[in-house]
């Protein structure tokens, strides 16, 4: 695996007035250029992790290191330049009155010079294919378009990491596909390392690595292949399994001689073809 970009060491966090730790002694690393999915049911601590990574909350014990800088109140503003975040509700993170104003918001905060700002706004909007909507007002955009603008706002700041905090959960299927497609392109162009917090297991299946959270604890981590071996365990945690995994299982139960697990339909269909030609 590539170089370590982020490391968490025994991070613990508790919300005021709650008995249980929202995040309990969690340690993991994030590597440059990967797509890491963090999954778990509501209240498993996955969203708290996102807030900790961006310095919106601080760990009670343990440490978070981003690019060799340990996250603390003193370094948080530098850390935020490295870690961009897209939140769940497309409406409640749109600050500007128009698309270009919104993308520029983060740049204004950093005091970027005007000429540079114009360039970066334009580039960022090109990357998410929203450059045709410069002067559009947010209430004329679809949810997926708003989230792409939010991604452009992150891109304009040229961070190393983007965190998607359930960024697709309020979108319709088309919007979800738009957003994931955009992020995947950015990842493939090596522009960003992606941490995606989600309960969409189809999305997680396409990640490089998955972390499963449960009750504030890191339950498992591994490649999608490894994680989806857990099948029943995942369902018990309130999660789902990708369709191709479920179908593969059903086919094996019918006595078809299939290899263990398939993360995508394409793989499954391919294997079935091979099997068919051998029959």
């Amino acid at each position, binding site marked *: 695996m590539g170089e370590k970009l982020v490391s968490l060491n025994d991070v613990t966090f508790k919300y005021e007035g709650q008995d249980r730790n929202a995040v309990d002694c969690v340690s993991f690393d994030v590597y440059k250029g990967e797509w890491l999915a963090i999954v778990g049911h*509501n209240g498993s601590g996955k969203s708290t992790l996102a807030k900790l990574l961006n310095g919106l909350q601080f760990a009670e014990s343990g440490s978070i290191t981003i690019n060799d800088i340990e996250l603390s109140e003193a370094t948080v503003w530098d850390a935020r330049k490295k870690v961009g975040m897209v939140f769940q509700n497309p409406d409640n993170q749109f600050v500007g009155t128009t698309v270009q104003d919104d993308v520029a918001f983060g740049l204004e905060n950093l005091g970027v010079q005007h000429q540079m700002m114009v360039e970066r706004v334009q580039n960022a909007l090109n990357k998410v294919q929203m450059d045709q909507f410069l002067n559009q007002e947010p209430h004329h955009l679809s949810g997926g378009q708003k989230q792409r603008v939010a991604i452009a706002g992150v891109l304009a700041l040229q961070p190393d990491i983007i965190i998607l905090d359930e960024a697709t959960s309020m979108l319709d299927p088309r*919007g979800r596909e738009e957003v994931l497609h955009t992020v995947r392109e950015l990842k493939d162009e090596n522009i960003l390392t992606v941490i995606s917090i989600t*309960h969409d297991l189809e999305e997680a299946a396409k990640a490089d690595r998955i972390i499963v959270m449960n009750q504030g604890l890191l339950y498992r981590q591994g490649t999608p292949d490894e994680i989806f071996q857990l099948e029943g365990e995942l369902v018990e945690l*309130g999660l789902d399994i990708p369709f*191709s995994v479920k*179908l593969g299982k*059903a086919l094996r139960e019918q006595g078809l001689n299939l290899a263990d697990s398939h993360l995508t339909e394409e793989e499954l269909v391919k294997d079935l073809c091979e099997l068919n030609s051998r029959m």
Partner: protein
Amino acid sequence: MRIELQDVEYRYQMNTPFESLAIHDVNIEINPGSYVAIIGHTGSGKSTLLQHLNALIKPTKGRVIIGERTIESGRKEKQLRPIRQKVGIVFQFPEHQLFEETVEKDICFGPVNFGIPKEEAKIRARKALKQVGLAEEILEKSPFDLSGGQMRRVAIAGMLAMQPEVLVLDEPTAGLDPRGRKEIMDMFYQLHKEQGMTTVLVTHSMEDAARYADEIVIMHQGTVYQKGTPFEIFSQPEQLMELGLDVPDTVRVQLKLQKELGVRFDHPCLSIEDLALEVKRVMERGSR
């Protein structure tokens, strides 16, 4: 109760420069005891359509027949409350409508508005709470102290306590995690099966439509593109995919297999088990 839409058209902001056509030439029947799914993209007109089902809006052309009542364009309608009691709509993110100090008061709000005595409403509240799978202890809590999933259930209980004859659900599981989604959908299905609740489900999810509905209505660009049983609808999946609509995972895989294996399936499979069986059968037949 039966609901019928005849040649319904609706335009927003009629007679202003901002006028826009939302739906047109819509003809649908919803028969008592049926489970109808309405499917389409955002902007296909399904949200506008659903507001006609309990006269929240009046067609600008055509007529809507709801039980004994007929809502027609150009006619003033009074006394719409009885219609709204009989046709309950659970809107998207229904937890946004909660406002009372306690869960009990909020659930009773609807029934009391429709003239149900307080005591009776309280009994209904308890029953509805049980239906949505919440414990009675939360009756005295403030709805704003609950988790998102619990708030959703309370809001749904508020609609069930009205004891409507038709239940209209607009994306009732949006934003929930997989377990919550399944529990809510199963709860509505149980209600439909056990009490014969007429159910209209507006959704993006082809999976849900295929699994639960007896009839599917596909909305496209403001009008009904196709309607029929899930079997009928999904036996021509290519058509739907051309519109950019999803088909259930099972149907999509089936289509891929047909292409790659060069085999034909007898019918569209709507469940994983069925598909696994069919795949096995088709492959064995092919090898002979």
